[in-house]
């Protein structure tokens, strides 16, 4: 295989992974916008969703389609419980305290999954066809390509929904000022719960996709740590920035893996983030404060 072909194939696989990163990042950003909380449990929410999918489709033999629906409902219920029990009482507390709580929730979820399903890999039914796709001479693994397509369609649909719907306006209004949002009759608590529901949806789909492309273990959620760089690169407050940022980080990781020892895959995204932040402290697409002087 020529170096150019190799470069292109790695790029495609990387960008495809980036589509899923964008989906995960979107869940994190929506919660951040609604409540200025950074949800470090996002990865574990994904992982738990994938196990829900496993339990529904395999253990209860509901099959993949119904299994996905059940997993989605379960994920949403868990997200609403987390919001209600652990996050809402923390409203108005220091940022770092709330972040620690989400860390704790992540550990608890990982612990529970470990207890219920054990530490080893479980086999989930494939929802993505394995048959490869050829772009000219270029070989794209089938699962990767289809996973990417699903992720990107969902990301674009959610971005459009948050841009044009009233719920999206309420979310962005609450992001700018909770007090003013209240004065418009917006129930900000419901907006926060709504954000957790969106995160549950993106987490569920990305978790099941990830488990399909890689394997399902209680450590699936660690991928969310790579997504941290996506969130910061896109700009924490930018909903539409996640897509581009996700693709860039996914690509960068893959290309790093091609030319450098694998350990560097963890490093290069953050080097890029550092450089971008030095030039643009709000990230690539983060809002410049719109303000008239």
């Amino acid at each position, binding site marked *: 295989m020529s170096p150019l072909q190799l470069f292109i194939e790695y790029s495609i696989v990387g960008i495809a992974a980036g589509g899923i990163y964008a989906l995960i990042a979107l869940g994190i950003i929506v919660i951040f916008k609604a409540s200025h909380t950074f949800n470090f449990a996002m990865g574990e929410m994904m992982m738990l969703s994938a196990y829900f999918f496993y339990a529904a489709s395999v253990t209860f033999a509901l099959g993949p389609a119904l299994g996905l629906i059940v997993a989605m409902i379960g994920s949403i219920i868990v997200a609403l419980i987390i919001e209600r029990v652990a996050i809402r009482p923390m409203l108005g507390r220091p940022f770092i305290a709330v972040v620690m709580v989400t860390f704790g929730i992540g550990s608890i979820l990982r612990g529970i999954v470990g207890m219920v399903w054990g530490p080893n890999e479980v086999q989930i039914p494939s929802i993505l066809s394995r048959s490869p796709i050829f772009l000219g001479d270029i070989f794209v693994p089938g699962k990767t390509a289809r996973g990417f397509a699903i992720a990107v369609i969902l990301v674009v649909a959610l971005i459009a929904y948050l841009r044009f719907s*009233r719920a999206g*306006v*309420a979310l*962005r*209004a609450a*992001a*700018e*000022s*909770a*007090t*003013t*949002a*209240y*004065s*418009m*009759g*917006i*129930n*900000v608590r419901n907006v926060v719960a709504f954000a957790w529901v969106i995160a549950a949806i993106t987490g569920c789909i990305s978790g099941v996709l990830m488990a399909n492309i890689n394997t399902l273990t209680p450590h699936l959620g660690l991928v969310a740590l790579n997504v941290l760089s996506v969130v910061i690169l896109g700009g924490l407050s930018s909903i539409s920035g996640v897509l581009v940022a996700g693709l860039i980080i996914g690509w960068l990781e893959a290309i790093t893996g091609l030319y450098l020892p694998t350990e560097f895959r963890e490093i290069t995204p953050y080097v890029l983030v550092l450089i971008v932040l030095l030039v643009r402290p709000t990230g690539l697409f983060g*809002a410049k*404060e*719109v*303000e*008239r002087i």
Partner: protein
Amino acid sequence: MLEIKNLEVVYQGVIQALADISLSVPEGKIVTLLGANGAGKTTTLKAISNFLPLEHGRVTQGSITIGGKNMIKAPPHEIVRRGVFHVREGRHVFSALTVEENLVAATFAHRGKRSRKDAYEEVYSYFPILSQRRNQHAGYLSGGEQQMLAIGRALVADPDLILLDEPSLGLAPLIVADIFEIIARINREKKVSMLLVEQNAVIALKYASYGYVLENGRTVLEGTTEDLSANEDIQKYYLGVDTEAA
């Protein structure tokens, strides 16, 4: 419409901001609240719209009834939905949202039967300049346009009572005159009651029919705006008329 009796408000458990406020706003009238900086005007409005808990404030005495119902316990978004819209001091438009999205945000308080589109069109008919700017970020509007948008959001909600906190703040006299003409039209045409807080006593006394003067968290003087305008203390301290020389 609105009835406040012997209201006392304390911030953070110790700072008494209101000591004894009593006032009422009759159906369809504009009532003004005058007073020096720190007298407690904004706090009175926050007590009505129940924003106090968000600032660690609390009503410790007295009652607030709106349309005969005690409102002290209702959360702020509920109070808006029951028809009391607070246009806060400093306008507080959502700067990252467009003009129209700001109006959309106010539809969560919308109670009437008319469609949202009709509500926006009504705002644009009162404030044509907003129509031209509807897709611009509100943060880029001029101060006067932001005040128009803040009032426009109230219109979308179609309230029975609007609490207006210093709509003239930081605006040029010509703009202030324009805005007050429109406020008067809204009051007349839509039969909305208004409780108007103003530093600019000249204009407040011109447009309101009744007024109260606050000092250190107490209502110390009240009367029709004609009587208040003729009052010597008011002339001296609020209207800047030199009564000694006269």
